[in-house]
């Protein structure tokens, strides 16, 4: 996947935004701590708005007592090349970005994973801080989808 590709991170819980700022809670610790997991994003060059909404709705449907409200969802953009080039305090590049298409559901689906062997709590705090800093164009989901 080309470094120039932009990645859309769906933030469907408004609690991951405070006073217009993206919080580190938008990037789950377990997705960065577990070698088999990744932070889900969608590449914008192949993104299908209906599939994006359906994915969020499916997540909400699995939650107890939660209704996905499209008007409360947000979008943040990360650049693929920028994420890959991020460095931790020891100069390592901890992130890989790979296509993870969900056939028939979300062909644009990708994953940002921690490819280091470091799984400590403090290190995960560092990774989340890096991703929040790298995120840009924080806007409502509808604003984002309207521009695709």
């Amino acid at each position: 996947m080309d470094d120039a590709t932009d990645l859309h991170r769906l933030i469907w819980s408004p609690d991951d935004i405070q006073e217009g700022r993206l919080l580190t809670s938008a990037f789950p610790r377990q997705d960065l701590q577990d070698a088999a997991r990744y932070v889900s994003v969608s590449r914008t060059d192949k993104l299908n708005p209906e599939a994006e909404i359906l994915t969020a709705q499916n997540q909400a449907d699995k939650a107890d007592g939660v209704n996905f409200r499209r008007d409360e969802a947000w979008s943040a953009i990360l650049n693929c090349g920028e994420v890959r080039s991020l460095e931790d305090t020891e100069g390592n590049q901890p992130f890989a970005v790979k296509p993870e298409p969900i056939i028939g559901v979300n062909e644009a689906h990708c994953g940002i994973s921690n490819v280091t062997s470091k799984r400590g709590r403090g290190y995960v705090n560092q990774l989340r801080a890096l991703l929040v800093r790298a995120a840009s164009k924080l806007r409502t989901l509808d604003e984002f989808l309207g521009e695709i």
Partner: protein
Amino acid sequence: MQTSRIEDVSVSSRSPNFNWVVPAAVMTGITFAGGATLCLDDLANRSEKSLSSNSEIPSEQRNTSSASEEAKSFIAGWQPDVQASEWYFDLNDRLLQLSQKEDGWKGEKSVAPSREARKAASEMISKLAHEGVERRPSIGLDYEGTFSLNWMDDKLSADLTVYEDGTYSFFATSDGRSAMADEERISEPLNGRLLSFLLG
């Protein structure tokens, strides 16, 4: 010196079961000239009375018994002699709001914050205020039910996670310097390196 605001505050969340009015005094903590101590039981009782008398809240949404217990548990964590920065009270308001989340709040297998997690977060917030941290953090709730405090401004990037076992982890960086820890105890003095970043 922070004085009490004698007005009720409406607290609501996406969950329909937790839309209740709490006197501002319950959430802000009180400092009086001369060090007079406010009777905390009176505050808890007033909270319960406000809930039972508030006819604007549909009966199916009132949760008087758990609300008064909630108020008392939060009050127990308060230290009325804290001379706190402005963010202290706003942050605790948000902590209270996030604490109402239930299992599944963020999708499948997401976890509601436990009582211990809420207590630990409250203690951390108080500790930061005691240490004179003026930089305003944001607070989020993680998928696993832990609370995270963030500082993201032009100079400082920091993420701190509080765990229900009374420990915390953090990472902070500013001006090319950084600090990180996996397991610090809230009951002990705040990590000195972290504090230097937050006060700097």
